Every structure is written in C-alpha cells, then in structure tokens.
C-alpha cells in the first residue's frame, strides 16, 4: 500500500505539468478561502470599531456569512447594460482578477515553499500589480455609463501616479538587498526584528503601504468607487458573479500587498524573536510559514483599520500627495539607502 502511494507520488513529481498544477491549486484554493473570510473579518472589525456587532446571523458568530454572500452573488442575474460592449464588459472582471492571482507565483511562503523562485521576482510583482488597472478601465468604458467611466478615469490616473512611488520604494529594498529574488530579499533581512528593512527604510515602508492602498483603490483612496459621488464607480453596472469577480480581485490584491509588505519590509517568514536571549531559543525563535502568515494578517488588518479611521481624500489632493509628497521623499530616501550601503551602516545582502 505504502509502496503504491510512494510510486504514485514519484510519478506525479516526474510529470512537471501536473505537479505545477497541483502547486498552483495549493496556493489558489486557500487564497480564495482567505478572500471569503477577509470580507467577514472586515465587516466584524469595522463593526467593532463603530461599536456595532457585525454579521452574526448565518452560522455560529456569523462565520458562514461569506458563503451566503457568495451564493447570493452567484445565483443573481448578470445584467448587460444597453449599448455596452458585450465582450469587453464580460472580459474586464477576468482581466482584473488574473494579475491578482498570477503575482502569487513568486511569493515565497518560506525558505523552500515557492512556486517559481525567479531572479526578477520583484520586477514581476511590480509588473503584475500595475496590470490590474486594465480591468477597471475596460469595465468603466465597456459599461457605457457616465459614472463607471468617471470611476475608470480616476482609477487610471491614480494608479499610474502611485505606481511610481511604489516602484521607488521597491528600489530602496533592492539597493539594500542587492537582489530582486523575493526569497533572497527575505534571507538578506536575517538577524532579528531590527535587521528587517522597516527600520532603515522606514519612510519607504510607510510610502509602500500608502501606495498599496491607492493601487488597490481602498479607503481613503477609493475615489474610483466613491459611492457618495459616483454611485459605485467602475462597477456600477455589474451584478451577480461578474461583480463577485471584481470583489474577489480587490480582496486578493489587498492580501497580496499585505504579503509583499511582510516580505519586503518585515522579514517574511523570519521570526521576530531571532537573537533574543531567552525567547529566541524556544519554539518562538524558529523561522516558519506561521510568522509570514501572521505578519500578512497584521497588514491585512491595517487595511481595514484605515478604512474605519480616515475619511475619503479629495481627488486633487490624492494627486498632490502622490506627485509632490511621496515621490520626492522616495527619491531622497533611495539615495540615502545607497549611502547607507556605501558607508556600511546596513550591510548589503546580509
């Protein structure tokens, strides 16, 4: 019996395509489940911050609520607006979902758990996060609706602006780590919580989180949706499962940005207790995937925290913040990061 299982296992491993497909499923299925519970988490957290209860009817503590929502959306009719562009209207949600999932290919969960350990991982992630905006623009245009179109225009300008600040924040990490491989970037941060890049790159860390908010069109930068001004922005004409796919893409993007923040600035799967005298020698000091997931959840929580705390930015102020505040700061700090390496304050790639 055991022999048979073993032989099946080795056969699957030899079939490169099947093995990769299994790995992809092992990443995406938990990701989709995480998205479902992230929506529940969001409603509970924001409810608590606003002294409400949040969903509590479906299942114990309302835990089945996300599934109720999913089935409701899947069973609803997809309405095609008159004079809309049918093909682009239906393709847009898929275009916005695909990059959000494809980017997970290079995300290292720990030292060896990574689907594609590529050298240009950081660039790949930057490229894919910049593609998500196409779904929004195409949706806005194909809907043949003024509100959707306005939302799409806002999203396009906002994403292109904040991408620059985000790219420079990544350049800072690149200079300190000396590599674009995400796994090696984490390994370069070894040595305890004060060796992670949030400390030497503190302004870039904050700017990366702000641009992450803007890239995912989340509050307080959610002018692309802006329900008080333009109803629901780019997805105002969407219903049923097409809307659900947009929703999925947005939350998958938020989890992705949280995971990347954990990897780039908070040491990925490294333990924060590394090198601490007593605690570091216990189980807490070990590096494991649990640390990566815990850090990701912390950053995911911050997304919700911002939403409950800040009022929506005015559109022109978003542009001003991006171009006149964040980009100059990143430019200066990238040079400072290079100086830190040259002067030996931070040892490159160690």
């Amino acid at each position, binding site marked *: 019996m055991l022999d048979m299982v073993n032989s099946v296992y080795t056969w699957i491993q030899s079939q490169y395509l099947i093995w990769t497909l299994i790995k992809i499923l092992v990443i995406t299925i938990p990701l989709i489940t995480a998205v479902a519970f992230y929506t529940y988490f969001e409603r509970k957290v924001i409810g608590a911050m606003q002294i409400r209860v949040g969903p509590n009817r479906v299942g114990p503590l309302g835990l089945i609520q996300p599934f109720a929502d999913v089935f409701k959306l899947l069973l609803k009719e997809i309405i095609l607006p008159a004079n809309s562009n049918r093909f682009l209207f239906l393709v847009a949600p898929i275009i916005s979902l695909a990059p959000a999932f494809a980017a997970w290919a290079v995300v290292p969960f720990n030292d060896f758990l990574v689907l594609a350990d*590529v*050298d240009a991982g950081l*660039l790949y992630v*930057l*490229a894919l996060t910049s593609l998500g905006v196409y779904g929004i*623009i195409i949706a806005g245009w194909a809907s043949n609706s003024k509100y959707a179109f306005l939302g799409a225009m806002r999203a396009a300008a906002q994403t*292109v602006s904040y*991408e620059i600040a985000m790219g420079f924040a990544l350049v800072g990490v690149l200079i300190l780590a000396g590599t*674009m491989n995400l796994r090696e970037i984490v390994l370069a941060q070894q040595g305890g919580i004060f060796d992670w890049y949030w400390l030497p790159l503190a302004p870039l860390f904050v700017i990366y989180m702000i641009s992450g908010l803007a890239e995912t069109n989340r509050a307080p930068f959610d002018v692309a949706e802006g329900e008080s001004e333009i109803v629901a922005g780019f997805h105002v004409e969407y219903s049923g499962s097409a809307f659900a796919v947009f929703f999925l893409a947005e939350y998958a993007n938020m989890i992705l940005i949280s995971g990347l923040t954990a990897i780039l600035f908070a040491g990925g799967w490294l333990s924060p207790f590394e090198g601490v005298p007593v605690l570091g020698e216990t189980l807490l000091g070990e590096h494991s995937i649990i640390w990566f997931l815990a850090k990701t959840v912390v950053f995911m929580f911050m997304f919700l925290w911002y939403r409950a705390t800040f009022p929506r930015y005015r559109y022109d102020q978003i542009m001003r913040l991006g171009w006149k505040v964040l980009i100059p700061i990143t430019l200066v700090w990238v040079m400072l990061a290079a100086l830190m390496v040259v002067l030996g304050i931070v040892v490159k790639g160690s």
Partner: protein
Amino acid sequence: MIVQELIFYAFSLVMVFAAIAVVTVRNPIYAVLFLVLAFFSAAGIWMLLEAEFLAIILVVVYVGAVMVLFLFVVMMLDINLVPLKEGFTRYLPVAVLVAVAMAVELLMVLWSRGRFGASMFPVPAPNSSDYSNTRELGELLYTNYLLPFEVAGVILLVAIIAAVALTLRTRPGIKTQDPAAQVRTRRDESVRLVKMKSEKPRGT
C-alpha cells in the same frame, strides 16, 4: 527544445496578428488593446531569449503606464472616423510604395549573405541557471556604457522640461487652490460661536 519553438511560434503568431489588428480595426479602443497584446507577446519572446529584465520592463513601462495613458486619452477623445478615412484612396499609392520599400529592406536583411543573414548567427547556447540578465545589464550600463547612459538620461530630462515649458501657459483669471493654506485653516476662521440668551417668541 521543441516546446520552446512551439511557444515562440505561438507568441509570434499572436504578435503578428495583434500588430495587423492595431492598424486595421475600426474601433480605436480595440486598436490600443491590440497594441497591449502585441507588447505582451513581444515580452514573451524576449523571455524566451533569457532577457527577463527587458521583458518585464516592457510590461511595467509600456503596458503598465504608457498604454494606460494612451487608453485614457483615446477614451476621452470623441473620434469621428469618417474624416480620418477621407484621404485613403488618394494616399494609397504612396503608402503602398513605403510599405513595399520597408518589406524589401527587411527581406534583404534576412537573406543577405553579408553581415546580417540568418545563417550568420548560430543558435545561441542557453545560459547556465545562475545567469542573471538583470545583473549583466546593470554591470554593462554602469561600467562600460556609463557615459552614454548618463547622456541618455540628461536628454530625457531635457525632453521632460521642454514638454512642460512648451505646454505650460499661464493664462490670467485662473482660479487655483493653495493646499498649504487649506491645510492651515483653523476653526475660528470659518465658524463663530455666539453666546446668547434664549429668546421668547414675540407676542405672547
């Protein structure tokens, strides 16, 4: 090897199809989207050439930023196709001449026995797995080609400044906002709290 060739031909076919579609489709939005598809296929082909840095930069810069702005502009324009097509038959002979000349030039490059023929270049051996295209490019750009690289950067900077200088017109009578002043406002500048005694309705 055969898989790589299949991938190459798949990408090339898509790219040629998309490039033709860019100039033939009627809807300008579709034209821009086909251009995006062509860029993607080009990135795929570069990836096959082990030039992953160029491939991803193509996606980041052209697909992620330039084409978004293109799409932005094309969507805002209300393009009327009829006047654009008016001169089609008149300019057709010139266009055909240019097209034929370019095709002949391309074929001459492909078939010439001199410096460029396809037979002149052997199939490049694949690099070892620790080869990093990004590192190689960076080392070349910042050592051997430092001066040309810096000059190119300065030229781009001049172009940016020139573009701003050419389009920036200060017209009189424009209302602008001063964000610093907006941020600096205090409550007492806009709201005045007045203490007063409660009044009785008149006539009772």
